[in-house]
């Protein structure tokens, strides 16, 4: 939800709109009163995969639970398909929930039910008859690749398989919106990737809007088209995932991004880094390049135009939402002349730079 996307999408067209939502929890027991969300406004575009990222305790769990009414906002409105969730009575809320799928970090499968039985549960709850349930569940088993496991119990399956059941169960009622609550946080990296691929496929094939919360930048990078960064109950940054990754503005976003492989400086360099240059020092600069810039021989051109030694300290080439993206940390003389030439080169080539510090 970049600002432009917000303008382009009228709230009525959006899958979910948070409009000035706050949530306070009153003091209870040992815990004092607590503001989980503070005046949050956010739009989730129909058909998008939107990520909400934040550290634990940032308020993201509360935010996603407002969408299907598991939590009620203290003030403000949450609109799902234009309907104010806070204004629904219990019966209407149950109808809405039957049209919003949800998957969980710990899967929350019934241990007493088979794979088939778990996927059938939401259909039984909505009062569907046995034959119709059978017809609905079979293709879902195929979709998540567990057709041969339909008679097994969750305890007999791996974490990734359990989450696949969770996804199939969430899709059983053919919802238009899928909520994902840290769905990959309990999985290993490889399994995480396969679950994310499945979410992507569902999004593309079924046109499902996915709203996911996570504390892992990897997840946001791999699947989302839009992202919002939440910190202490406030949205501190939002936009298209590519823009946020390549031009992070808020400190929290930068901190979360620094956890990504390739964006960390080698320890020796990080320790030697100074805020101010001394004569003869070298500037350590992060270059971010994407689109056409990623395909030009930038390094050799940089060395030619700077006319001095350029060291490569760290680097990574990656994709965000299918767009190529590179990040390179280089060091060159911090003297005015060299720096000036380098800056001119960066400007001419449309590179985003960030001076990280100086080393001797």
């Amino acid at each position, binding site marked *: 939800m970049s600002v432009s996307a917000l303008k382009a999408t009228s709230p009525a067209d959006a899958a979910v709109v948070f409009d000035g939502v706050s949530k306070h929890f009153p003091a209870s027991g040992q815990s004092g009163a607590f503001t989980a969300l503070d005046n949050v406004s956010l739009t989730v575009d129909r058909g998008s995969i939107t990520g909400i990222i934040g550290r634990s305790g940032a308020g993201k769990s509360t935010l996603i639970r407002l969408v*299907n009414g*598991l939590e009620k906002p203290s003030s403000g409105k949450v609109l799902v398909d234009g309907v104010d969730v806070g204004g629904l009575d219990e019966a209407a*809320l*149950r*109808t*809405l*929930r*039957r049209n*919003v799928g*949800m998957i*969980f970090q*710990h899967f*929350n499968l*019934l*241990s*007493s*039910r088979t794979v088939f039985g778990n996927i059938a*549960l*939401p259909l*039984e*709850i*909505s009062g569907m008859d046995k034959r119709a349930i059978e017809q609905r569940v079979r293709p879902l088993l195929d979709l998540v690749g567990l057709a041969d496991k339909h008679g097994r*119990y*969750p*305890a*007999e399956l791996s974490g990734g398989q359990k989450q696949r059941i969770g996804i199939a*169960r969430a899709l059983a*009622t053919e919802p238009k919106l899928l*909520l994902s609550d840290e769905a990959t946080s309990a999985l290993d990296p490889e399994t995480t990737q396969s679950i994310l691929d499945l979410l992507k496929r569902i999004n593309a094939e079924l046109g499902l809007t996915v709203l996911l919360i996570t504390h892992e930048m990897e997840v946001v990078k791999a699947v989302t088209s839009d992202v919002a960064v939440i910190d202490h109950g406030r949205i501190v940054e939002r936009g298209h995932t590519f823009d946020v990754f390549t031009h992070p503005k808020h400190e929290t976003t930068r901190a979360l991004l620094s956890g990504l492989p390739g964006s960390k400086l080698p320890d020796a360099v990080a320790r030697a880094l100074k805020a101010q240059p001394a004569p003869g020092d070298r500037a350590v600069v992060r270059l971010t390049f994407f689109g056409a810039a990623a395909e030009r021989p930038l390094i050799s051109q940089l060395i030619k135009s700077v006319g001095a030694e350029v060291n490569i300290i760290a680097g990574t080439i990656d994709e965000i939402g299918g767009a190529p993206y590179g990040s390179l940390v280089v060091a060159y003389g911090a003297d005015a002349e060299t720096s000036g030439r380098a800056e001119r080169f960066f400007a001419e080539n449309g590179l985003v730079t960030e001076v990280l510090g100086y080393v001797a």
Partner: protein
Amino acid sequence: MSPDILLRIGGATVDTIYMVAVAGLIGSLIGLPIGIFLATSGKGELFPAPTLNRIVGLIVNATRSTPFIILVVAIIPFTRLLTGTSIGTKAAIVPLTIATIPFVARLVEAAIREIDKGLIEAARAMGATPMQIVFKVLLAEARPALTLALTMTAVSLIGYSAMVGAVGGGGLGDLGIRYGYQRFMPDVMLVVVIVLIVLVQLVQSAGDGLARRFDKKNRKT
């Protein structure tokens, strides 16, 4: 031992089984919903009624902390009202049932509270009604624990049923006291104890076996 005594032991065994079965059945039927209520009526739970929850909890505690033998004597008027008598097998069923209800209720409550709260949240997110959550999630998931709870109830009842013998309740306990103790027939006492041990063993093994079959969580394939 004379055939007459053996016949009496047989009869007393049937009486004991009868008392345990009837008191266990009625007590569980009443105790189960009370246990479900206790487990789901706290603040912010499925059927929030914290005040009633506390009151019911208090009554359950009071009944459970009354020594059984005192309960038997204390409710004699009620027993007489219900069965027309205060001695014998039929009369013994009344205090046994009354003692079973809170026992079952607490065990059921504990079994349901063991269930992962995430499952309740998932069911709510599916649009389940509180009743659907009770039947499709809580009772289904707690089935192994509930089976063990009912087994434990039956075993306790066998012990209690021997105790009502002390006040003329009929059954094996009654026989043991009248013949084994009062008439100095240690062999009768021994047989009575052995029959009780066998009964408890049978009930426990059956319950354990059933619970294992219901348990899909810790199963080894």
